[in-house]
């Protein structure tokens, strides 16, 4: 495989979630995390899953990632059922998941080293390409703890993009960041998504964030976790989180959310 072929964007996948259910048993009792959830995500679509804690949105993401298994139902990528984790679906986590014993470059290389068909020199080129894409080429040999929260999430993004997946799964990746850094990353993510078109499933509890990033916002309600409503966001890109049009969409979603979850929607930020 040549380097140009490697850097060429893979065509994004179509995701089908078909009647997926999942329960968790614990000492406290049983949680019905997902109840008969179905969802279609088109090729290259940016879908945001929104809902209060316990609505199963992260569980669904983990099932699509192959890290957890559904009790019933199936998830298909381009018609193929998902049986486990795969390089075609990369995950970006909310918790810091970068490896502190590796520097920035080696973190990005971790997934590339597991990808067959690349020579060491080519891997380096690929890694550098993605570090440039997230604007961290000057920090390739920095230790992880030396980076700010926003930079860490950029490295996570580069690491997730590096194996050239077709689907990008993001689990509240910006939740722990301050507002200013987050705004910057919204811009970066939209730019990168325009450039490296991926199918993105983005989990968040921030309604405005969802309206800013998603082509579509899927609203979940908890106990049991179900999809209660969906909103298409037809605003031009790149979008500004502070724009009035966007605020209108966010308000609409927020209203629906309050209606579906009642007073329990308090954990959701507008």
């Amino acid at each position, binding site marked *: 495989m040549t380097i140009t072929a490697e850097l060429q964007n893979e065509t994004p996948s179509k995701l089908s979630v078909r009647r997926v259910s999942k329960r968790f048993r614990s000492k406290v009792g049983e949680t019905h995390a997902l109840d008969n959830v179905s969802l279609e995500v088109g090729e290259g679509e940016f879908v945001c899953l929104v809902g209060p804690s316990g609505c199963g949105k992260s569980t669904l993401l983990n099932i699509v990632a192959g890290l957890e298994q559904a009790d019933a139902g199936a998830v298909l990528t381009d018609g193929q059922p998902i049986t486990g984790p*795969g390089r075609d679906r990369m995950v970006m*986590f909310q918790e810091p*998941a970068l490896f502190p014993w590796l520097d920035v470059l080696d973190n990005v290389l*971790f*997934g590339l080293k597991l990808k067959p068909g690349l020579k060491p020199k080519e891997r380096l080129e690929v890694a550098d390409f993605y570090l440039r894409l997230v604007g961290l080429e000057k920090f390739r040999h920095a*230790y992880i*703890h030396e980076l700010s929260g926003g930079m860490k999430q950029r490295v996570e993004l580069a*690491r997730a993009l590096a*194996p050239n997946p077709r689907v990008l799964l993001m689990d509240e990746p910006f939740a722990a960041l301050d507002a200013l850094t987050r705004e910057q990353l919204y811009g970066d993510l939209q730019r990168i998504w325009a450039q490296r078109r991926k199918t993105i499933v983005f989990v968040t509890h921030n309604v405005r964030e969802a309206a800013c990033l998603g082509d579509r916002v899927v609203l979940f309600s908890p106990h049991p976790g179900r999809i209660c409503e969906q909103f298409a966001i037809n605003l031009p890109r790149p979008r500004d989180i502070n724009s009035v049009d966007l605020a209108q969409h966010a308000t609409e979603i927020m209203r629906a959310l309050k209606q579906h979850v009642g007073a329990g929607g308090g954990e959701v930020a507008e």
Partner: protein
Amino acid sequence: MKRTLRALVFFLLAVVAWELACRARLWSPVLVPSPGSVARYLWSALLDGTLLGAIGVTMKRLLLGYLFGIALGLPLGLLTARFKVLNDTLGLLALGLQTLPSVCWVPLALLWFGQTEGAMFFVVVMGTLWSVIIATDNGVRNVPPIYARAARTMGSGELHTWLHVMLPASLPFVVSGMKQGWAFAWRSLMAAEIYVTILSGFGLGHLLHYGRELNAMDQVIAIMLVIIAIGLLADKVLFSPWERYLHRRWGTERN
């Protein structure tokens, strides 16, 4: 530099105080020899080769047993962390045996191996092994589960994850376990050498033992100082650089 100087001054003052106490005849010189006589013994033992020979014998025993203990303990610790069955059995055994002062192995070692190098080796391994198992196991358990999950999404298989994620991620714990294992091994070997005479080589413990038999307190104290110096040196040369490196990498240094 400043810290080295401070340490130097402290030890110098301690020796001066010791010398002054001896000059003042606070105790009989038979019980507490002066720094001068201790230094004279050290010098003569150095010249006639006894000291270096003994250090060589002791260090060889220590390193052999210690390295074997680590080579065995590291994989066993990984296994007890990975398999519940092993944790409930071997892990419990390790926890129990770790609480046993390793000098308690000496009588058994004597019975099994006689007055041989094998007995020494056995005691040192017993001193090292259990704390290395427990530290490795503990280290792996303290690795955030998110690391393994992230690795799995990037296509890392079970074995790859253990070698490239769990092992490096648990290094800070493993190194402190190796340090503890070293301390235990060092102690148990000294006890064994004082306890048991082995004709295949006289270690530092034997020199200490003969010092007592000959009532040569200058020899006893001199050897004690050598043992302390080796312990300190091992800490500074073997473990400190590792720990500093890990603290830098993980961003956990304090000053």
